[in-house]
């Protein structure tokens, strides 16, 4: 849409977007060199909510560190705690009962839908439409109700334990989840009619902010951002973990590389998550939810362990360097939005500010997860 223009780097001004700005979804700051409405150059400044998670990983035991992961990304918290417990289980060689893994998968997918719903609302709000946020959050509240009944928290869950779960799900949860799936499918159709079909919405996203596959590779972008650029990459499929190989689901990939593609990927992913939940509920096995052989104080053997999981925002990696003690010698969190956001500086050059902010919305940012 935007005609190619000749930027005048000599007649620019500096626009400071953030740290408190409605479009940055938190405390992110972007210094933009502007030529009128066009961005000549952008530089992201991070660290406004840097909470020292990696430092805390070093001076807390593995179990004490568990609640931290849900404060990392409060929208899709279960995915991140899942990564942590999987990393410990992998290193310590703990076998997790099947039922526990199934429940983990179901709850993670529920959380993923909740996260995408919130993103959907916030993204449309970035584009100036307010009502979808309200609808999306209302649907999200249903998920939070279910998860709250099981985990005891609305946002910052600490539900998984090394070797299993904190408590079992009951019939009420299964009933509620089964009722939820058709209702959510109906809602997705409604969102399609309300938002995806809107001409203004399409015009604002189609062909805007192209991110090529090669650029994704150079920056290490993962998740819906990479999948919107035609990269068929999903940790659940590429490096299968937990019980995901048991489920039949697709990875939505779009090749348009624009903001609309990223939008579509997330909308399709919700449907795929619902499929996983459906299958999980049907085939949920009986049995214990906690491993029998589990050391009381977890100490990992000396070495270097890496675990990647697919969270709502992309590939989350946790690297634990252990010196045999009960807390990590070094704990590195590889957060997906960190890499996804890094694209922004280069990709938004020459864009209109309103397109750039729509692009920022399409990256699905959670700032504490970038700053850690």
């Amino acid at each position: 849409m935007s005609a190619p223009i000749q930027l005048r780097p000599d007649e620019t001004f500096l626009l400071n977007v953030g740290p408190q700005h409605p479009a940055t979804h938190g405390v992110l700051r972007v210094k933009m060199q502007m030529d009128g409405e066009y961005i000549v150059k952008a530089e992201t400044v991070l660290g406004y909510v840097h909470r020292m998670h990696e430092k805390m990983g070093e001076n807390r035991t593995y179990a004490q560190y568990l609640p931290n992961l849900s404060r990392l990304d409060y929208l899709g918290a279960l995915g991140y705690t899942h990564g942590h417990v999987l990393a410990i289980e992998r290193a310590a060689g703990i076998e997790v009962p099947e039922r526990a893994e199934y429940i983990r998968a179901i709850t993670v997918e529920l959380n993923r839908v909740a996260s995408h719903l919130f993103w959907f609302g916030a993204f449309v709000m970035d584009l100036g439409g307010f009502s979808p946020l309200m609808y999306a959050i209302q649907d999200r509240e249903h998920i939070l109700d279910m998860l709250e009944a099981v985990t005891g928290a609305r946002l910052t869950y600490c539900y998984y334990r090394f070797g299993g779960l904190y408590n079992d799900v009951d019939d009420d949860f299964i009933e509620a989840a089964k009722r939820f799936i058709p209702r959510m499918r109906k809602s997705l159709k409604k969102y399609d009619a309300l938002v995806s079909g809107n001409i203004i919405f399409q015009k604002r996203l189609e062909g805007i902010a192209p991110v090529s596959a090669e650029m994704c590779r150079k920056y290490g972008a993962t998740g819906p951002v990479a999948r919107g650029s035609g990269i068929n990459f999903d940790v659940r499929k590429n490096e299968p973990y937990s019980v995901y190989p048991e489920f039949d689901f697709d990875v939505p990939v779009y090749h348009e590389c624009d903001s609309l593609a990223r939008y579509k990927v997330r909308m399709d992913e919700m449907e795929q998550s619902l499929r996983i939940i459906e299958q999980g509920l049907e085939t949920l096995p009986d049995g214990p939810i906690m491993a029998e052989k589990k050391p009381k104080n977890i100490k990992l053997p000396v070495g270097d362990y890496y675990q990647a999981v697919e969270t709502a925002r992309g590939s989350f990696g946790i690297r634990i360097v252990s010196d045999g003690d009960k807390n990590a010698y070094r704990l590195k969190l590889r957060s997906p939005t960190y890499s996804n956001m890094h694209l922004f500086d280069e990709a938004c050059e020459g864009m209109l500010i309103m397109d750039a902010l729509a692009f920022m919305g399409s990256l699905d940012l959670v700032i504490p997860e970038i700053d850690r």
Partner: protein
Amino acid sequence: MILETTQQALQALFAGSVPADEAEAGTPRGNGVLTRDYKTHGYHLDAQVDAAQLLAAVTILDEGGFFIESITGVDWIKENQLEVIYDFSRYDFDACRVVIRTRIPRDKPEVPTISTIYAGANWHERETHDFFGIKFAGHPHLVPLLLPEDADFHPLLKDFKA
């Protein structure tokens, strides 16, 4: 498939010598390429290189179509060394995660930047500089990223006191 070709290409940097695993020897391992058990470690190849060989090793991975996952440091205060760890992975279904690591003396922490090869290394290197004070020679904009602009401390060093 890609595992073997990458291994061979990286192996060529060391003229074929295979180092001993640290668990067996009980001492820090030497430079060279190791294959790791994916089930317990989560990655396939583990190459320790000299800081001078770093760019060559990363170029091999770049040509092999890997994407950058993260860069981080570890402070081995007992050995008076700092370690920089680079993680690379692939988008296709030929799962292969490669770890490149390099060790540098603690009193002169300097490695070449790889942001010329991977643009995405820029922030990761700045962050590592924030936390460990490792200098990335040739980095275009090595100023604090996560810490305040005027920060002169490196909090993840083991001898850091708040």
